[in-house]
């Protein structure tokens, strides 16, 4: 099948155009570097069917990041029939340099000027026909998010692909970067831009720009961050998602209807006790696995993804990144890491995948470690906050210890790990009003991803626990874990929760929740248990993702460290609380 590759700098709307051409959905957001995986879809243009490839953002053909390398290899090895170079129309002058580089490489490029509306709002009038003449290539002007100009673009693609017969990129294009050639290209780009852009009166510094300056102000930044965290995370995800929705789904829907109905029905049709246990027993696939997945995890993760999508699409995150950069440098990361780390509060497994957008291996390893160790995912945090509800002092101690661990471990890791100090550069996109349809689609597509990856693991975990119980392995393991658990000053029953914790961190926390409801844990015990569980081994999904992204050696080594470290910290906290007779 003939291929169309969409390329361009980060944050110019490649994914929106992809969605437009194919009718399928790739994640779109207002921060650079969202497209981590290459999306592929099909589009019918004219009478032909094409495979459309949405590539990660690239600034130049000489790759710096892993993503740029991926895009480069698509262009040169997959030999697409048409390459759409998408640029942000208002940045024509700057981004045209890459167009020139693509043309020099002999690639079949078409230029797509996107976000024409924002350029127009700035008073820019762009003569696309003149660009066509100057560069002898087709040029289209579109507003992808509104779909305007896309039909014309389709027609142009049809025409263009009929015209090119042989496609022969100059394969000798070296990856080496050439300073002088870069300057020459920019000179030419500037020359063309000056010729084709006319200015009408511009609207001046708008309200968005003023708001943007406030968001980047270090003194206003703190209160804004607190506002976002309080309303976005605490109120919406914590109180509404983890409180109201979980309560409704768990107690009303599952507690009153689904579980009693399933137990009755399964017991009636399946008169084998051992299979009944598998499906509707204490740790059954339906009564535990499905209930946890749908009634506890789903509402929390869904509300988080929804809030995150809004925050993401406004363009707040790059502004947050520039505010925290200096701070993050102390833990071996740059401001760029704020994106995977914040996403980690939703799903650390997904966030570990997003660490790919970090430029050096060192930063990726440190971010992965911190995600696995000290960033609780939304599901876990929801249950932990429920566990500690009504004990503000306990919440403070838990929070204090986790933040302390986050910085100490980050600081030590940055001191111990060899490699270059990170450097920070990031485009600050304009603030945009999020579009409801995009927010909903993005939330939905992330949830679909989450369920595809995570749901089978819940079921798998239930089956493992069932197997462990009937074979007696589970009992042996629980007895083994009882020792370290008792060193933490916790009751024997808590070891069951810790064993669950290995299958899913939040599973473990949810197990503790049952203990708390039974009145088996004191305030101190709750805090120690929550701290240990937060730091404890990542869930199976994250362990697998760590191995996949960082390699088996680092993945395993990290898990062993976390295992000992989490129990060590729990032990220390318990010791200190006892030593000073503190009762929480």
């Amino acid at each position, binding site marked *: 099948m003939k291929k169309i590759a969409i390329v361009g700098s980060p944050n110019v709307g490649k994914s929106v155009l992809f969605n437009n051409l194919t009718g399928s959905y790739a994640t779109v957001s207002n921060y650079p570097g969202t497209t981590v995986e290459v999306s592929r879809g099909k589009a019918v243009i004219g009478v032909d069917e094409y495979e459309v490839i949405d590539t990660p953002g690239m600034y130049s053909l000489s790759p*710096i990041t892993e993503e740029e390398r991926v895009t480069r290899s698509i262009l040169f090895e997959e030999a697409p029939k048409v390459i759409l170079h998408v640029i942000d129309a*208002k940045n024509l002058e700057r981004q045209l340099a890459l167009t020139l580089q693509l043309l020099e490489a002999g690639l079949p490029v078409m230029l797509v000027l996107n976000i024409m509306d924002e350029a127009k709002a700035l008073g820019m009038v762009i003569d696309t026909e003149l660009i066509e003449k100057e560069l002898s290539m087709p040029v289209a002007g579109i507003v992808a998010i509104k779909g305007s100009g896309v039909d014309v673009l389709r027609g142009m693609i049809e025409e263009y692909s009929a015209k090119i017969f042989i496609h022969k990129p100059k394969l000798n294009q070296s990856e080496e970067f050439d300073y002088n050639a870069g*300057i020459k290209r*920019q000179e030419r780009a500037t020359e063309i831009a000056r010729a084709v852009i006319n200015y009408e009166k511009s609207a001046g510094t708008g309200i968005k720009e003023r708001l943007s300056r406030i968001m*980047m102000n*270090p003194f206003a930044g703190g209160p804004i961050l607190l506002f976002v965290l309080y309303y976005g995370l605490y109120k919406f995800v914590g109180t509404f998602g983890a409180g109201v929705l979980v309560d409704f789904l768990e107690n009303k829907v599952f507690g009153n209807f689904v579980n009693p109905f399933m137990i009755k029905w399964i017991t009636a049709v399946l008169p084998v006790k051992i299979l009944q246990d598998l499906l509707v027993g204490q740790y059954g696939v339906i009564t535990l696995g499905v209930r946890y997945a749908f009634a506890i995890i789903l509402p929390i993760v869904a509300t988080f993804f929804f809030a995150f999508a809004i925050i993401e699409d406004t363009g707040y995150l790059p502004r947050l990144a520039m505010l925290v*950069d200096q701070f993050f440098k102390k833990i071996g990361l740059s401001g760029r890491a704020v994106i995977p780390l914040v996403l980690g509060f939703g799903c650390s497994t997904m966030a570990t995948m997003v660490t790919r957008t970090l430029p050096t291996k060192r930063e990726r390893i440190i971010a992965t470690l911190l995600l696995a160790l000290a960033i609780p995912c939304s599901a876990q945090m929801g249950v932990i906050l429920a566990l500690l509800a009504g004990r503000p002092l306990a919440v403070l101690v838990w929070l204090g210890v986790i933040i302390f661990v986050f910085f100490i471990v980050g600081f030590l890791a940055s001191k111990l790990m060899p490699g270059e100090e990170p450097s920070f*550069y990031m485009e600050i996109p304009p603030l945009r009003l999020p579009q409801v349809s995009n927010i909903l689609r993005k939330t939905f597509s992330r949830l679909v991803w989450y369920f595809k990856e995570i749901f089978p693991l819940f079921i798998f975990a239930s089956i493992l626990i069932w197997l462990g119980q009937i074979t007696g392995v589970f009992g042996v393991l629980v007895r083994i874990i009882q020792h370290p658990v008792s060193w933490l000053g916790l009751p024997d029953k808590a070891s069951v929760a810790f064993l669950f914790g290995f299958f899913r961190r939040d599973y473990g926390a949810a197990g503790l929740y049952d203990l708390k409801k039974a009145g088996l844990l004191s305030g101190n015990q709750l805090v120690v248990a929550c701290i240990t569980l937060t730091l404890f081994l990542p869930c199976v999904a994250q362990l697998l993702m760590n191995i996949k992204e960082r390699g088996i050696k680092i993945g395993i080594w990290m898990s062993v460290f976390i295992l000992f470290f989490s129990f060590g910290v729990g032990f220390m906290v318990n010791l200190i609380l006892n030593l000073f007779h503190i009762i929480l």
Partner: protein
Amino acid sequence: MGIQPLSKLHVKDKGVIAYLHTKNKSQVQKLMSIGVLPGMHISLIQRFPSYVFSIGHSQFAIDKEQAGAIYVRVAKH
């Protein structure tokens, strides 16, 4: 005013990039790839906690080390 590194400029200063100077080659490449090239007009928007500048209609945030690598011929006010 002469030529000064971006890190020495004041907020609202404007100028034209004269050259890039750093020991680190990949740093030059990074800056050039985002459009920080000799001849481009640049203006400094913010210095703290990170340097924010605009080139054309884009804004970028960078750290102090990189701001020190961009030498700007400052325009008279």
